């Protein structure tokens, strides 16, 4: 494993350094500075805002939603968040392009709500099935207990 680690590290550093070299030699300084700013802002936006928000939502759910319902809510929220990440930029940029490009023409806001709705309905159905199933099992167990008495 050690040999692999060294090979991977050297190859990675070499390729990365090549990329940095090409950037520094071929991109104007002004653009490079803005690129550095983008890199820093991306890290801060993620580590200081997005990731803590995810942790916060998880904490709130754990505090306020019962375990069984939380499972389905978590599935719905994970799926919805993934879909929203892709849809939100398109909602903002919708209609920004000449018609002939056939680009960003759809009503992405409505489509996102539709996807949220589908995800919610599917999870509600699965939740309802789970509740019924749990009830039936509890009933069977209760009957089993009374029969054995």
């Amino acid at each position: 494993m050690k040999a692999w680690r060294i090979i991977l590290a050297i190859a990675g550093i070499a390729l990365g350094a090549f990329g940095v070299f090409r950037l520094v030699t071929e991109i104007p300084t002004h653009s490079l500075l803005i690129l550095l700013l983008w890199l820093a802002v991306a890290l801060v936006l993620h580590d200081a805002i997005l990731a803590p928000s995810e942790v916060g939502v998880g904490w709130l759910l754990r505090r306020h939603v019962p375990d069984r319902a939380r499972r389905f809510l978590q599935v719905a929220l994970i799926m919805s968040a993934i879909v929203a990440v892709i849809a939100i930029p398109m909602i903002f940029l919708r209609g920004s392009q000449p018609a002939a490009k056939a680009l960003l023409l759809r009503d992405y806001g409505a489509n996102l709500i539709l996807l949220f709705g589908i995800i919610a309905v599917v999870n509600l159905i699965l939740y309802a099935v789970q509740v019924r199933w749990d009830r039936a099992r509890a009933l069977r167990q209760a009957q089993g207990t009374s029969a054995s008495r």
Partner: protein
Amino acid sequence: MVQQRPGWWPRFSSTLRSTAVTARIGRVLGIAIALLFVTGLLSHYQYEPWAWLPEPAKPVWGYRLTQGIHVATGIATIPLLLLKLWSVYPNGFRFPPLRSIKHAIERLSVAILVSVALVQVTTGFLNVLNWYPFPWYFLTVHRFLAYVLVGSVLLHVGVKLPDIAYGLSAKVAEADVLTEIPWNENPESHSNAGTLPNPPTTGISRRGMLTAAGAGVGVVILTSVGQTVTPLEPLGLLAPRQWTKGPQGVPVNRTAEQAKIMAAATSPTWSLEVVGPRPYRLTLADLDLRVVHEARLPINCVEGWSVGADWRGLSLLEVILQAGGTADSRIQVISLEEDWGFNHSFIEGPQLSAALLATHLNGQRLDLDHGYPLRLISPNRAGVLNTKWLGRIEVLS
């Protein structure tokens, strides 16, 4: 060391996170990044092929496939990356934050990896959406940043190889909980305390979380890939392009208005200048006599969308032969458009022999936005290199 933490130091209690979870997400993400890198390099090759290895003309759907994969994978990588970062977020809160020079370097390399990955997928997606809130030329920075990204990934895999080996071999439900305390310093961790009951997950299970994330990414792919896999267009709730809405059933990336060629392209005195050992001109009337070739070829954009279309026009090779060129010539086709980097392209080898100078698209005369009166179309060729509004063709060798 654990006890020295100040009381306000963040503590992560979720049992969902685990090296086993991270390693599995990381494996998918790593495969995605490898796919992106290879298809990305293939795309750059379209723009700068080596003279001795010109881009092939077969399969005609080659670039459609590789660039379709590039953009679909790139879109799917955005949520995958965020998920991966969620799974290791507590690692950022180890105490003390910097233990040694080695630890500081490792954290710096991770910071570079994370920031470059975030910027790379974000700007890639913004390019698909044709929005450029940055001053640099997208193509160049995207390419060189890819080297930095893949280099950082290789280094990261090298550094984390023991964790990856543990994570991939451990069962998802039983493996150590990943918190701000490294497992080897935590006496209660699964690996140190011996055989323990699985870490309890009161809400969703780890496997359930991975399944939900996979389903979410699946929905994203299914609802966006219709811009490339044309039969799925009706499902394209999140597809940036909608090929059915383009003029003559084909979108464009640069309109006649943007190119400012309206007057020149619609002029009745337009003619194509063919420059070679035997130079000549083709007028609009000449074109009509020579439009006998037909081809069904996809137009495939670097931004991932593509659509098959019926093209009719002249054989480029015949036009070149008449000017004294050969099938081995290197050709430059030049647009009427001025002041744009892609107002010309070079074509040679198999693509030259297969290329059409198109006058008709899907049974109609080319729309002005599609390059009226004459454009290049060749198989397995990046969309932007199929130069529109041709005014001049040069036999270079």
